[in-house]
């Protein structure tokens, strides 16, 4: 695989994310297409319904486009929670090896023991099913993921000379973390964000499949899979299409995350340049 090909894939990945975001915004405008219409049940692919309709007469194409919203908003909410809390925690823990950093790292391990699904099950009692429960559950699980990554990337930076110089110049620890450390680990942060977006999309699909994610009438790829399961013999397309949407969007996000982390790690970057030679 050449560098040029990889760059092209990276650009197309970014393009995909832009389109994906635009489609998510389109969700409310498609509402008339995913109303339940029993008279239009299970119509095969046609010019009126590009991808056909499901057992409730909803247009599959509109549902797939509309599903972008639930998947993007849950994954994005989870990343915002995870990064918003995890990055400061990781930065604080990385400054020194003391009681505070050890307790932050232990707290991380503790939160990590709660799979997003278990958190969703527990939160379901309070908030019911919906974007909030799914986003919070995946977001809580994301906190230790971000904290660990930032901790690992910034720990070696604190002993560098420029940090010592900043300390001598009277900069506070907070300012050093914000102005000197954070920009240096930003590519690692970006890579992690892309990766967690991909994993968040997969997690949202899982939660919606078991009924802990978004609720009808809002379209969701995970619930589409659930509803398609009984019709797998008569209308396999109903199961294939939403799954393809999940897999494609998860693939592009994780792909971009990978390219970014290659870029963030100079050793791996050299390896890629080596490949080209």
């Amino acid at each position: 695989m050449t560098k040029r090909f990889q760059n092209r894939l990276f650009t197309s990945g970014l393009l995909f994310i832009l389109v994906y975001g635009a489609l998510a915004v389109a969700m409310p405008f498609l509402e008339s297409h995913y109303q339940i219409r029993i008279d239009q049940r299970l119509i095969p692919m046609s010019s009126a319904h590009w991808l056909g309709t499901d057992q409730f007469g909803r247009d599959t194409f509109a549902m797939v486009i509309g599903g972008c919203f639930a998947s993007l908003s849950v994954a994005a909410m989870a990343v915002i929670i995870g990064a918003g809390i995890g990055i400061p925690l990781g930065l604080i823990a990385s400054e020194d090896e003391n009681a505070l950093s050890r307790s932050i790292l232990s707290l991380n391990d503790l939160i990590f023991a709660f799979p997003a699904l278990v958190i969703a099950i527990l939160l379901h009692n309070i908030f019911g099913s919906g974007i909030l429960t799914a986003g919070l559950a995946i977001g809580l699980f994301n906190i230790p993921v971000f904290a660990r990554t930032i901790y690992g990337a910034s720990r070696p930076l604190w002993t560098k000379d420029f940090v010592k110089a900043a300390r001598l110049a009277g900069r506070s620890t907070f300012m050093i973390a914000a102005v000197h450390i954070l920009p240096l680990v930003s590519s690692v942060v970006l890579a992690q964000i892309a990766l967690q977006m991909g994993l968040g999309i997969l997690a949202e699909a899982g939660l919606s499949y078991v009924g802990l994610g978004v609720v009808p009438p809002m379209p969701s790829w995970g619930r589409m899979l659930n509803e398609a399961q009984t019709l797998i013999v008569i209308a396999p397309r109903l199961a294939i299409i939403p799954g393809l949407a999940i897999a494609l969007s998860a693939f592009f996000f994780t792909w971009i995350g990978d390219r970014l982390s290659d870029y963030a790690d100079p050793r791996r970057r050299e390896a890629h340049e080596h490949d080209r030679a």
Partner: protein
Amino acid sequence: MVIRIFIRKLAGLALFLALASLFIFLIVDVLPGDPAELMLGTDARADTLQALRHQLGLDQPLALQYLSWISGLLRFDFGTSMTYATPVLSLIGERLPVSLPLAVMALALTTLLAIPLGALSAQHYGSRLDHAIKTGFQLTLALPNIWLALLLIMIFAMSLHWFPAGGFAGWKSGLFLGLKSLFLPVLALALPQAAILARIVRAEMRDKAQENFVLGARARGLSEKDILWHHILPNAMLPVLSIMGLQFSFLIAGTVIIETVFSLPGLGRLIFQAITQRDLPLIKGTAMLLVGSVILVNYIVDLMATLLDPRLRRSGAAA
């Protein structure tokens, strides 16, 4: 020395389990306000609510409620399910013969696929084969396991009729039939996980290949193949082991969801019934079991890593 590390880590384990149980207690029993009302609905009669509150011990102070719950946990008493009127632990026990083999086989298949493929990719680093395998990993890890499960059902159950599309034959009807009904679920769970793990194996082996012991082995005239499989791979296993511990959390969630796809009578079905019935003791008990098992597995992995790696053992003793 080793015993001292063991005891110190055991104290950590106890603290973790206690904190996890506190967290579950807070979310289930404290945050919703009145669990009795949550279980019976807002239109329940006042005396029924009061009776349930008394039965669940909700009329006692919160600290006492928590203490009685964890003292029960310590005596392996996870409480009594409201819908089944059966001890939670025996309900869980009935489901484990499905869920446990499923999770264990998925973990085994993940490892069996990931280590050789990761090593193969590392051996041919930078070649066409490596890129092909790497792209394969990238595509596989993005597969939602539910979709993979449905595709497997379409191909191997609906078209080829090799495996059942769902349900569990039961171990009583023979080992072969039992394994046959778990084969597709195991595959759906293991493939994406194996892709993630294989990438870690590949990256760790690349890292280890830069180290001096590899140079030493090469200087002693060992063949590249020998160095890769007998020197680099064992050394890369430690970080891989700790990643496997972290993956266990995904495996637990995946098992519960995949059981639903294949309508297996495992823990997954129990949990989702508990959710629809708002059976709080059952929800609390199963959540504690799942979280506790993740904590325990990571504890064992951590302990194994410490015992296997002399460097960690020394630094562990110094701290």
